[in-house]
């Protein structure tokens, strides 16, 4: 595990600089801008425990509707400024037939445009499906019921992994629906309120635990719950 601090020089090895890495405009060398662990997958980035989200194009986020005008919903996505979701950017939405979101609604949306100088734009159009939003079968859109909570950005990244241990383990004993946004907001829905709160606590606390510890914690939970 290699730790880097702001100002440390980073070898790029031909990859693109990602989050936490910046290029020095004079020398053209890359350096770290935050303290964290260096990771290089498809880009070189520095992973740390920050909470504030910086919007990136293509990310899927869970947001809260904060306000609405005729053309836009104003959505809070834990970023420095609110994002805008056009009221017509849903699969098959028309002026007559479009979803109406109340203030406080949770939405799962993709970031369409993210430029630091301009407003962030969201969309609920899912290009993978031709279904209309009104069928309720489109992945992106309003999240009904359940509750939302916030975790660190790197914790959300771990929950999004295909082989996330805690989610698989909880799935053996509980039925639940979960939606993780890359902005660190998680929506969770289970049949009863008691289960929902229990699962929420388990997921929140699992960050930083080893698989053995998670196994012990969930085992105990099941025992208490049943």
């Amino acid at each position: 595990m290699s730790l880097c601090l702001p100002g440390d020089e980073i070898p790029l090895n031909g990859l693109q600089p990602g989050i936490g890495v910046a290029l020095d405009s004079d020398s053209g060398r890359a350096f770290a801008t935050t303290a964290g662990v260096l990771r290089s997958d498809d880009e070189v980035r520095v992973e740390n425990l920050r909470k504030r989200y910086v919007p990136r194009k293509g990310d899927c986020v869970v947001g809260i509707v904060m306000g609405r005008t005729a053309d836009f919903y104003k959505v809070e996505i834990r970023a420095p400024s609110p994002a805008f979701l056009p009221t017509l950017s849903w699969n098959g939405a028309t002026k007559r037939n479009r979803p109406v979101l109340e203030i406080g609604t949770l939405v799962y949306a993709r970031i369409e445009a993210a430029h630091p100088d301009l407003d962030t734009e969201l969309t609920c159009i899912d290009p993978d499906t031709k279904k209309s939003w009104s069928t309720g079968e489109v992945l992106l859109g309003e999240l009904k019921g359940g509750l939302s909570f916030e975790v660190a950005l790197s914790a959300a990244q771990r929950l999004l992994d295909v082989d996330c241990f805690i989610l698989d383990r909880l799935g053996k004993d509980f039925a639940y629906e979960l939606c993780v946004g890359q902005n660190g907001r998680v929506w969770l829905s289970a049949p009863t309120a008691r289960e929902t709160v229990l699962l929420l606590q388990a997921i929140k606390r699992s960050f930083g635990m080893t698989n053995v510890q998670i196994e012990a914690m969930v085992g105990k939970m099941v025992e208490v719950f049943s």
Partner: protein
Amino acid sequence: MAARRDGRAANQLRPPQMELRPLLRADGSARFRFGDTAVVCAVFGPREPRFRHRELFDRASLEVVVRPRIGIPGPKERQMEALLARQLEHVILANQYPRTQISVIVQLSCCDGAVSACAGNAAFLALLDAGVAMKATAMCVALAVKLEPEPVIWLDPTEAEEAQCDALISLSVDGSRNQLVSNVSSGAFLDAATWASCIEAAGKSCKVLEAFMRMSLQKRLETFLKPG
């Protein structure tokens, strides 16, 4: 050379202590301690500026608030706020966050000399915890210089030592590149030789502080960000 009351060598720091994210609601926070001097710092942002006139179109505006241990903030705190803001502006990559504001709230919780250096370190660590982009790792140390009978430099002075000395200096140094980031000095005039040895002593101790920080960060990140 006059001995120090607490038995330290002239170039010895009091034991530093750091704690990251003691406050859960802030975006980043840190507690930093040099012996009996302790400072808590919280960072909020980058967020939307609360007042429109604070907004800068090409970079983030930095707001520093210093709160004294007791009472209401006065001119002394205002001065510290301005100095801290200047120091942090050199380190933060503000142009990555246009039209936003970064608030740094510094709460002095225990004052026994070297307060501004301690506050500088706490603020830097809190920014680090918040993940604000910065271009260098700059730690701060304070020095006290006594000119009579011959020049003596005391690193990291206590309040009693500060009162005895002729000049007080607070330096912030980028340890890995050995570059001076900021300096605040008050009191008597120093000659070039004394000044140079002050900077050298500060550079060395900032390196030590950086190594200390690296170690404790490593420990913290290892628990949360295990490989995988």
